């Protein structure tokens, strides 16, 4: 299996905030071009890569979605050289003070840091407890007149923590949600270069998952696949998550998870579980009773409905600039996907049944 780490590191070093996925889309397109037969971009900026199956047309089609957008921030106001912020995607404000960022001005990228202002500069009511986002500021180190000419309301601000390898083949950085899944999807495409498959495969790097699931909804409408798989990160056990959320966290580096719940088709869960067991890939059941909180939520109800499945890659500290993922889990996910695809029979969809609703 090729070393996915350099590609993954490049993915998490490129900005790609929701609706502004250009830079990361470009990297993915370059990587996928030699791996697929056709590549195109949707109306909302999602990347569609088609690898044709070898069955005679008309062939059924499988869509695999991994969102490429990442959370970040946007400038709402420039005040005496300091920048006020709004979030794009959900961010726990408590992790922001002291975070290094890049401010993407119209002409230049500017390094900066999110700072907690002196408490006395805040209204009294705002000094207690966690400092709210409306009071945090970005300092770029530049003089106010320079900032006013380089930065405007609406400019993007992305995290600037560099990728760092921790012990035990583990990578830390920002935007591993969901670039880790894009890497897994890429590994799958690489495996498929030497594994034949009957079905058409649409590899889709979706846009705007963190804001509206818009890329997934519109790509599913457009491609109208017979089956859909969604790759997203899930919660790995890490610091601070003891308590009632325990059932939602999984050990880091002990295999991907398989989604279970109303949003996902139980027949697909069964098939993936059987396959993982055969391949000796450890997997865990990842429960979301109603809404999986991923692109699957939009895809399942596109057009007249699409049987959808979710594979999760465990990730510590989701939605912080120091997310942590095990490279092995990414590799396992890529292999599991490729094997599933290579075994897809033409009549798979007709065999999807509802008898096994309890996952047995």
């Amino acid at each position, binding site marked *: 299996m090729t070393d996915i780490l350099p590609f993954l590191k490049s993915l998490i070093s490129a900005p790609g905030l929701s609706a502004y996925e250009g830079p990361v889309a470009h990297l993915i397109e370059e990587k996928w071009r030699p791996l697929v037969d056709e590549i195109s971009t949707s*109306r*909302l900026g999602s990347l569609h890569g088609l690898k044709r199956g070898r069955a005679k047309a008309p062939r059924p089609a499988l869509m695999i979605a991994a969102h490429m957008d990442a959370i970040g921030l946007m400038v709402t106001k420039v005040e005496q050289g300091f920048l006020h912020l709004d979030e794009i995607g959900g961010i726990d404000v408590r992790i922001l003070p002291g975070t290094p960022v890049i401010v993407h001005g119209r002409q230049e990228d500017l390094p900066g840091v999110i700072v907690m202002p002196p408490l006395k500069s805040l209204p009294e009511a705002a000094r207690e407890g966690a400092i709210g986002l409306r009071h945090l500021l970005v300092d770029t180190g530049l003089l106010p007149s320079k900032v006013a000419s380089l930065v405007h309301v609406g400019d993007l601000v992305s995290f600037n923590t560099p990728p760092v390898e921790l012990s035990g083949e583990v990578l830390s950085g920002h935007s591993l949600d969901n670039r880790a899944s894009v890497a897994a999807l890429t590994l799958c495409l690489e495996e498929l270069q030497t594994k034949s498959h009957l079905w058409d495969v649409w590899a889709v790097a979706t846009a705007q998952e963190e804001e*509206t699931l818009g890329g997934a909804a519109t790509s599913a*409408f457009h491609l109208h696949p017979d089956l859909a798989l969604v790759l997203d990160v899930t919660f790995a056990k890490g610091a601070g998550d003891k308590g009632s959320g325990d059932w939602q966290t999984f050990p880091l580096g002990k295999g991907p998870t398989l989604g279970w719940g109303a949003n996902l088709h139980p027949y697909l869960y069964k098939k993936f579980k059987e396959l993982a067991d055969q391949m000796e890939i450890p997997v865990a059941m990842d429960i979301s009773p109603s809404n999986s909180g991923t692109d699957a939520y939009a895809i399942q109800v596109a057009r007249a409905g699409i049987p959808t499945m979710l594979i999760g890659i465990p990730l510590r500290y989701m939605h912080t600039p120091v997310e942590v993922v095990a490279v092995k889990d990414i590799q396992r996910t890529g292999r599991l996907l490729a094997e599933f695809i290579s075994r897809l029979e033409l009549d798979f969809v007709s065999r999807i049944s509802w008898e096994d609703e309890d996952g047995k």
Partner: protein
Amino acid sequence: MKQLIQKLTDTFSPSGYEDAIRDVIRSEIKGFADEMRVDALGNLIARKGKGGTRVMVAAHMDEIGLMVTHVDEKGFVRFTGIGGVYPRNLPGGRVRFMNGTRGVIGLDGSVVGNDLPALDKMFIDVGVSDREACPVKTGDVAAFERPFMDLGGRLVAKSMDDRIGCAVAVEALRALKSTSNEVYFVFTTQEEVGTRGAQTSAYGIDPELGFSIDVTGWGDTPGQRDFDMALGQGPAIKIRDGGMLSDPRIVDWMIAAAEKNKIPYQREVLLGGTTDARAMQLVRSGIPVGCISIPCRYVHSPSEMIDYADVQNAVKLVTALLRPPIKLP
């Protein structure tokens, strides 16, 4: 244009009950559109131009309102909101029902202290003494009633949100003597309850790109710190709001047109609130969208204030965008 604005804001049409405003707008654009139709949810769709890039421009014609939940024994009318109706904008307000009945909003006396109660602790007093005499019943619909006020540079009325957007769309349609594009001006219904008209009309039209014209908030009165938006500094080009991110290509296109035509503009990042563009963006295979906003003070109150020059500049900007052939990168 002030007369048009007054005519539109004076019309009674809460979400779901847009017949009256549709008739008014239809009469205003008759003769200027190439084709007009009304779709299944009551959207008024006016096409200008044929062939060329298919563009949808949405301005919602519904306004927020109130609906009767119960008339009590003494004839006091309990109500709920249609769209974003906020307690702080209600006490002492005057309303008018679809059947012409008028009334005043009162507060339940059992409410203690200075905190504003929720809607269910308020009522509408229509001046009767018992239920039998009450001219309205459960399910009846009302809207704010306030006279239009011309302060010279600033105009005040109820339902500037979004009759001002409709006014801009009407004026742009009239000014657009010819266009290289196929433009669908859609006066949408039910925006205030979830951008519903926009979603279905966009599905039906399937445009290649689009934008909405709506009001946005304000940041230039005492104590307002978070929103960098002022009346009189030009219409706003929306980059983001609480429900969506505008397509960057649309934002760039709008900024380029404003700068080329020397039209003042502001960049908008609105925390909270959204417009028809959000619904348009996610329809079918997706539509690149943006929004042109009119800065508006006291939004969703009975006295919304806009700057007249901002409105005129918005008309100029919309016209400048729609006239030449549109090609996004």
